[in-house]
């Protein structure tokens, strides 16, 4: 399967667990859920997808959204504004 390139930005607890704010990577992940599963296995993220939301190109999306090469992806931990 052909690899696509993604730009991933991390915030809050995920940024700390990953040890960086942004990374470019190549992956064969088809959906956002696939990509998170890959990253979770690699970096041991404690949060599961049911606790997270995902944004693709600065808009909230479903986990089943097919990814395109060049997508900017942000995994969103439980929020706590205010």
């Amino acid at each position: 399967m052909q690899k696509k390139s993604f730009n991933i930005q991390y915030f809050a607890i995920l940024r700390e667990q990953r040890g960086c704010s942004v990374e470019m990577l190549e992956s064969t992940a088809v959906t956002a859920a696939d990509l998170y599963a890959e990253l979770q296995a690699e970096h041991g993220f404690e949060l599961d997808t049911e606790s997270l939301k995902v944004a693709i190109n600065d808009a909230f999306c479903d986990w089943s959204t097919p990814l395109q090469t060049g997508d900017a992806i942000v995994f969103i931990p439980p929020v706590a504004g205010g």
Partner: protein
Amino acid sequence: MFNLSATPLEAIDLKSRFADVRAGGYVTFEGWVRNHNDGREVLRLEYEAYEQLCLAEASQIINEAKEHFDIIQAACVHRTGMLEISDMAVWVGISAEHRGPAFDACRYVIDNVKVRLPIWKKEYYTDGDSDWVNCEQCAAHGHAHGA
């Protein structure tokens, strides 16, 4: 309108944006940093925000408030960075012809800002520990935890 601010909200003239001869009232909400949460003594807070999505989602919340309630203007500002006890973390302002819709819209905006904007809060405790609010329990229990 909505914006994030890395500098103290106390120093910003927020009220002057609301000057309007049609307005008969102006309701504001200020969220402050308190010295305790969930039985723990809090020393300070740190807010982190995903700016692009915050701006889009907040703009939607403000538009919803204008659709649902008979108001003239609505605005919100949220802090980022390190905050000390009693600092203002969030500000909401609503002007309207009459007080009822102004109070209702103010409540609507702050309630939705708290649960929908991609903003995270790290609490630093007097015992030296620190936690991302709403995140650590999810991680520990492996399920969603409400904000």
